[in-house]
């Protein structure tokens, strides 16, 4: 019974942290500080990504511009008089013996487009210089 008579041990009270009042303002402040710290990093990262994208797009622009130029040169080569004359000769065409002129009252067809880069960009459709 001795044991039963023993008094219950004293409750250990321990060290308790002082209560701090955590308000919404403090959380907001912490978030702002964190965001401010992260902002330059994020901004820098975004700029780098955008810069990279821009560089890629510029590269594509250059490549396309060069391809356009290559196509222009190819068109010019294909429509060259020398090539057309050679091709006509290869398929057995010969110059006409005589030219027949017919006077008609209607307006003629629109002149063909000029296959020059700047004129394609800046002239109205169908505009061209009279030969």
């Amino acid at each position: 019974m001795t044991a039963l008579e023993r008094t219950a041990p004293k409750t250990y009270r321990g060290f308790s942290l002082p209560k701090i009042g955590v308000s919404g303002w403090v959380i907001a402040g912490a978030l702002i500080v964190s965001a401010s710290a992260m902002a330059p990093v994020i901004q820098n990262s975004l700029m780098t990504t955008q810069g990279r994208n821009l560089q890629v797009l510029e590269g594509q622009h250059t490549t396309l511009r060069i391809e356009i130029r290559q196509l222009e040169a190819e068109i010019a080569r294909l429509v060259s008089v020398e090539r057309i004359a050679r091709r006509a000769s290869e398929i057995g065409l010969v110059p006409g013996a005589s030219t027949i002129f017919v006077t008609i009252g209607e307006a003629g067809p629109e002149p063909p487009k000029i296959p020059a880069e700047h004129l394609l960009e800046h002239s109205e459709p169908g505009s061209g210089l009279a030969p």
Partner: protein
Amino acid sequence: MAHQRAKRTSRVWLPAIAFTVFAVLVLARLVQVQILQHDQYAEEARSELYSSDTVFARRGAILDRNGFLLAMSMDTWDLYVASRVWKDDKTARSAAEAISEATGHDATYLRTLVKESGLVDVLVARDVPYDAGKALLDANVPGLVGLPNTVRVHPAGNLASSVIGIIGADNTGLTGIEAWYDSELLGTPGRVIFERDTTGSPIPYGETFTTEPVPGPDIILTIDRRMQFTAERSLQRAIEKHDASSGAIIIMDPQTGDILALATHPRLTFNTLDLSDPKQVQLLRNSAVSDIYEPGSVMKIITAAAAIDAELVTPSTTYEDTGIAYVFGVPLYNWNNGVYGEQTMTGVLQQSINTGAVFMMEKLGVGLFHQYLDAFGFGRTTGIDVSGEAAGLVRRPTDPGWSPVDAAAQSFGQAISVTPIQLVTALAATINGGRLIEPRLVKAMVARDGTRDELSSQVIGQPISPETSAIMRSMLGNVIDPGWYHPGKPHLYSAGGKSGTANVPINAGYDDTQIVSFAGFAPLQDPRILILVKLDENADLVTGTEAAGPIFAALVDEVLGYLGIPPDIEQVAAR
């Protein structure tokens, strides 16, 4: 225990003084570096940190009058190899193989070139096509660096090559339009300044300052590619038929001075041009503007125009041809030693009578005759916009060894040397109302923003009146249509013109070889084209009328038909 007091000594000041002196020196050096020589060191630091490159602007294109491309610049790469990267044999071997596959250069040759050059960056391939070069650069071949460049291409082949001219390896024009308009075509080069690492390579995402290059404007020629092709083909055939050594054909709009076609033979070929061959170097010269020759009887047109304008003769003025004209006792004969009896001035042109030309010159007198030659622009450049133009030679009374016979000979095209372009310019004035117009090869420039700058024709003189010009058209029409067969008469159009046949002058007289020509225009009353056909040293020795006349006639029919001008010879038009 008593402390022993340290003995006083002055040595302690020595390190203090030494440190002070050192500090002063450091300070002085800092002042020198940071303040006095600040700019110099800042510049050195910048040059260490930054590197720059010139970015050449794209050279403007050259187009014909209807906008068809004749010359343009295509993007290429110049490939360099950083030689220190290739110090490792294995790296060098694999890199050289990769470059060899793309460029066709021998891999061993590339390795030797880089090894023996002694340069930091070695140029291994120039003007590599853009696609091939980009593929190589994207493959990160060790040590390979590509610099953008351009190469001139000619989509229409060698058409008008002597007019267009060539450019050098540094993209500057050397001959022709390329040289004359070089500063315009070249544009404004740009510049890139970038941060670099210790090897000199740009630092990715480092600071970069770029001045964009401004491409040169495109140049629109007065040349029509169809007419140019027709002229070149006609000339080629004529050279073969008459076994001539060379020749030229010029087609001009006499109302504006526009050169519609300018063909020369031989001509340079862009792809096979070898400047180490002296014969090919000769081809860089445009013979139609650079080479002089005695025009022969074509010059009688000028003599007649002068005499009529001075109101000393009319087309119907007559004189008696005896086959010989004596000038200061020197006999001058007709071209075929013919005797034509009484002749009008129109007859003089029709029969090409030398004594008749001398008759008109004597009416004018040497002074007035030379005034007219000057007014027509002989003896000076026409101002055509292409490099290498010659002024021609006109012997004058002030020249050493002058003789009045010289003036007489000049009246029928000897003792005077002209360029084909000079003659065409003068002849245009005789039929276009008397206006001497500066010939031109460029009619407009188009900037990259589409702004078009039209270049206008320049009237530079009025050697004869419009009335004289009308008379000349009629007289020259009678030359081609004399009432009998004339090889220079077109089938479909009225025309006027005159032939010329002149022996080639040598030191002590004249050679047996000859230069034949035919100059004419059509239609007769409203000339749209003026054509000069010239053949040099034709081995068959036929005259200008026989050799060059038919070429002129065929060209008139073809070119005016191409221009959409209805025929004005009734019986043919009606068929």
